[in-house]
């Protein structure tokens, strides 16, 4: 371990980004990753940490419209970026149908994976909607759930795909 570093805090860096539609400016240590930034600086505790290693997906949030691992992005990298969290996409109503389907199908138990899983499922619905169970399983594979058997999560996503498709067919939703 590098002794001189441990004792020497790095200078703070000021960063301005848009989080859930609101512009925020904070001075943070460069080592702060996005999830610690959201949780500790902004009290947005809906995004979770399960590994801080890029593996579990509990930290999945959106940056500039695409999902990322929040634990593998530094807050200071996001100058000018647009960040959306579960709090934001809940409030916007973008995934209300998906959230309802998760509740209806019991696609969660402890709920710890759920915000990340919903962010991931929302990306699936946006970029490659398909009710094919294998395709869904494939896409959500980077998001661990240790409680459910995944089955109900797949049910909920497939159901939402179908519902949006038939709503679209009727000229409804999007």
């Amino acid at each position: 371990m590098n002794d001189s570093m441990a004792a020497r805090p790095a200078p703070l860096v000021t960063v301005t980004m848009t989080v859930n539609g609101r512009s925020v400016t904070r001075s943070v240590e460069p080592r702060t990753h996005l999830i610690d930034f959201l949780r500790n600086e902004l009290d947005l505790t809906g995004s979770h940490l399960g590994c801080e290693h890029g593996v579990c997906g509990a930290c999945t949030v959106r940056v500039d419209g695409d999902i990322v691992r929040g634990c593998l992005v530094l807050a200071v990298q996001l100058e000018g970026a647009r960040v959306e969290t579960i709090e934001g996409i809940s409030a916007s109503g973008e995934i209300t149908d998906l959230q309802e389907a998760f509740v209806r199908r019991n696609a969660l138990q402890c709920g710890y994976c759920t915000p990340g899983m919903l962010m991931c499922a929302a990306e699936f619905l946006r970029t490659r909607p398909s009710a094919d169970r294998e395709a869904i399983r494939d896409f959500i594979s980077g998001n661990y759930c240790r409680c459910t058997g995944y089955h109900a999560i797949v049910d909920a996503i497939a159901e939402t795909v179908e519902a949006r498709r038939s709503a679209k067919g009727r000229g409804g939703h999007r």
Partner: protein
Amino acid sequence: MKFAPFDYVCTRSLAEVYDLIEARGPDARILAGGQSLLTTLALRLSEPSVLLDIGGLQELRFIEERNGAIHVGALTRHCELETSPLIAARLPLIAQAMPHVAHAAIRNRGTIGGSLSLADPAAELPACMLALDAAIVLASRDGERRVRAEAFFKGLYHTDVRPGELLVRVEITPLEKEWRFHFAEFSRRRGDYAMVGLAAAARGPGPLPEELRLAFLGCGDRPVRAREAERVASGSASAPRAERYSALRRALEKDLEPQSDPNASSETRMHLAAVLADRAIEALSG
């Protein structure tokens, strides 16, 4: 674990990057997508004093055709390779390989430059570069130099990038007429780094490949072209499966030096490599 402290610079130009590398010395580290660098920093195994973020250098983010070659900028993200129509049309091997790289959220940030500079022997892109005989372009204050993929990967996480240099793009001349491509790997779970993988290309006007390229991942300290197996395979494409496996296996014993690790012994890797080669030939035979 949280990251140890470091300074951070968001660089605005390549010239600035070169200056900073010079000024901050070997403790400075390039930050591209961060999808590998930050995971290692989260183990506190290395503690660079400063991260030089090149993520904002838009001039390194492109996929274009120039003079018949496909040029891919170092900051091109995995997701861009995955969905690019140009890549799908001209470098289908890469398009086939991309879904095997990690997961969507990681592919949304990870870059080709980062993947090649990291040179993980189990990564997909380095092996594709070998199979496609890509030129890797390195730039420094003194200008650019081009290194063939096979010379670029020098060992475990070790490349030909010299101090003061940056990987800026790769240039790949598509193998078009009469070439077919096949990418496959064995990984424990979806998106995991492969135990063993194979990027293969075959040429032949008829159903049987006349010329083959087999680039393996996970079978040594770097991606490896299996020349002996390529030679043997071109001759044994029509042989019965069991015979072909044995011939390939013997050839691969000369080509590859897979390591044993807790995930798989060297024998297991060798066996899986032969299975992949055998299946590739099957798949590539029209």
